[in-house]
């Protein structure tokens, strides 16, 4: 054995020694635990840390949130708050006409609901179309395919705050876009002060930021479609559009459904990048539900934790429905996969 190989072996052994030592110590109670509880007990043991974290940071706050939504007052300790039971929900749902926010007791809540609804419809539709088109392009044998895949995925890695700031610097009155417009001889425009353009920016930026993730899911689906189907279609002289509608889209449907449901859930929760980009403005035209809850719960001088909790419970119910939909879609996909 050469000196280098000997050194490598010794180094490996030296590094592994503490691990083996630690494993031998842990092994004793673990073996005892397995003897006492069986393999089911071992599963519980390994799940326990995760479940503890889930319980502390999700389950307990969720239960506490229910109690907060049934109270009123400005104090933050539950024992200092007054129980009003469903009064906060009544206040939120008190509306002459749900389609006309001006008739609602909490008009800002309903404005946020309307804005979120519109955002979800437009953003999810655009996200799905853009992700499919991108996935189709990236699935072709184009030059620098790996590079382009990385490029489209890169925004997913950015912090939403960074994303919001970058686009704010581009779109604000004295931003990059207006500099270009000015240099081309055009009239600079206050994009973020116009409700149409602010909404368009919010949708576009969130699509830009997240499409890489959905493209990846669709790309995986595209690569799972058997090549022989395309070869058969080519031999039959089928037009590309027909190939897409008759082969690609039906076989991509399980992945597409997952993408739509995930994008839906994420769109309902939209907050950070839009908050940094537009601050909910102009006026309240990009005020979405999560920002409303944040504002009324923490940020505003008119803060009302009970009302914010009730609004978050209502939003949570919508997310539960969407999550159940996602589970249903997932199970249907699994069943279909098993049949095939």
């Amino acid at each position: 054995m050469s000196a280098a190989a000997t050194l490598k072996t010794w180094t490996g052994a030296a590094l592994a020694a503490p691990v083996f030592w630690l494993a031998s110590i842990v092994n004793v109670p673990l073996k005892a635990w397995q003897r006492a509880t069986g393999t089911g007990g071992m599963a519980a043991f390994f799940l326990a840390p995760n479940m503890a974290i889930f319980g502390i940071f999700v389950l307990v706050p969720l239960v506490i949130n229910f109690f907060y939504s049934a109270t009123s007052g400005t104090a933050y300790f539950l024992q200092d708050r007054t129980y009003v039971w469903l009064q906060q929900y009544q206040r939120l749902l008190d509306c002459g006409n749900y389609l006309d926010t001006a008739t609602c007791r909490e008009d800002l809540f309903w404005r946020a609901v309307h804005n979120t609804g519109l955002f979800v419809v437009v953003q999810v539709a655009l996200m799905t179309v853009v992700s499919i088109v991108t996935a189709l392009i990236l699935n072709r044998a184009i030059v620098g395919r790996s590079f382009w895949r990385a490029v489209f995925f890169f925004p997913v890695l950015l912090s939403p705050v960074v994303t919001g700031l970058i686009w704010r610097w581009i779109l604000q009155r004295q931003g990059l876009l207006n500099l270009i417009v000015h240099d081309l001889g055009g009239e600079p425009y206050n994009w973020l002060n116009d409700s149409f353009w602010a909404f368009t920016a919010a949708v576009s930026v969130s699509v830009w930021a997240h499409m890489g993730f959905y493209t990846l899911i669709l790309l995986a689906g595209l690569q799972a479609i058997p090549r022989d189907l395309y070869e058969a279609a080519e031999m039959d002289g089928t037009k590309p559009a027909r190939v897409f509608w008759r082969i690609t889209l039906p076989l991509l449907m399980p992945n597409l459904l997952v993408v739509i449901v995930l994008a839906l859930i994420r769109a309902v929760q939209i907050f950070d990048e839009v908050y940094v980009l537009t601050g909910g403005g102009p006026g309240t035209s990009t005020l979405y539900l999560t920002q409303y809850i944040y504002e009324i719960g923490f940020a505003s001088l008119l803060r009302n934790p009970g009302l914010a909790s009730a609004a978050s419970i209502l939003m949570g119910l919508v997310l539960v429905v969407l999550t159940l939909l996602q589970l249903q879609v997932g199970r249907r996909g699994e069943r279909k996969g098993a049949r095939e």
Partner: protein
Amino acid sequence: MTKTRTLLAALSVSLLASTSAFAGDVRIMWYSDGVEGDVIQDLLNRFQKDNPDIHVTLDNVAYKVIQEQLPIQLEAGQGPDIARVTNIKELAQHWLDLRPLLTDPKYWDDNFGDTLDWMRPDGSKAITGFMTQLTLTGGFANKTLFEQAGVALPGDKATWDDWINAAAQVAKSQQLPAAFAIDRSGHRISGANVSYGANYIGADGKPAKVDDGTKAFVGKLVDWTAKGLMLKDTWVSAAGSTYRAAADDFINAQIPFYYSGSWQVANLSTKIGDSFDWVATGSPCGTAGCSGVKGGAALVAIKYTKNPKDVAKVMEYLASESVVKEFSERTLFLPAHKGVIAKGGLKWGSADKNVGPALDKFVQAAGETLPAADALPPWKWANAYFAALVTRVSQVMAGELTLDAAWPKIDQDIADKVAEAK
């Protein structure tokens, strides 16, 4: 055995070390508008040299943290030992009564007596802190832009209309995006509202409904925004009661007239340098007067501190006459200390020729505030009123509400806040 002994010894030493450090720890949550963070750190360094048993940590945070996170920490019985705050009255139940801990409470009563009531619960005689600065809302004009446009600066008793018309001429001549801007804050527009006869406080001390005075000025403000005279970005580009300053637009010479307050003097001086000349204008006049709103930032002790004696010692040092004088001179803040004011002779720490006259102008304008404005700083519901105004008026500016629809919503928002606080 040796190993166990070593381990125990190490544990004891570390425990002792941590306990002794903890006993003298004083944390200050501090925000800065200008250079005051550096100044207070310098003053604290001197204090620590003379008091090695007390370790003061200055946490410099954004104003947003003071506004949004500190109240939640306080409600949970947490927070720093001392904080610099502007939401002084509403959170007064969380401040520590320093009176029994101070060596000379009379010194505090004598020198800070006028403002002590701003930072304690109604009816209390507690000493909870002191104002690090007195502020007054007021305007600033870009003198160079006015001169370049050949427009004379409106005089002392000029109205809001006079100022906006003059600024509009400058903006047109110099091809600026707008004539003026006011910080996105209910506090900033309240002086103007009062100047048009507004009174926020009802006979019972609770918030009154929006009156004709408020409607008069806010109506003008909305109209100026619709005409593009007021920089739309500041008020329209956010939802809710989010605070937005327009100082950067003034500093970048994008607007010839800016309405904010005396605390901006150091900021403007530092950032504008000799790029252009600027002047403080005081508050333009309305039909009832030419009022700004007084206020300021207070340094208060928090009652959840574990080291009240050390906190009192730090507060006594920072409130001492020589320290207050030096702090004011170096930060260009108006002092709240009666002794410092009475002795006069403050040597403003700035070579900027714009600074001295600006501060003098604010001192002069402080004598012109109306009683309805003077009643606001110690009033519990002032912030609720300010927040409701900002939220709804910016909706009107964005075209989401009419002014007529906004008034009952402002009243409702304030009434909800009052009801919620019961």
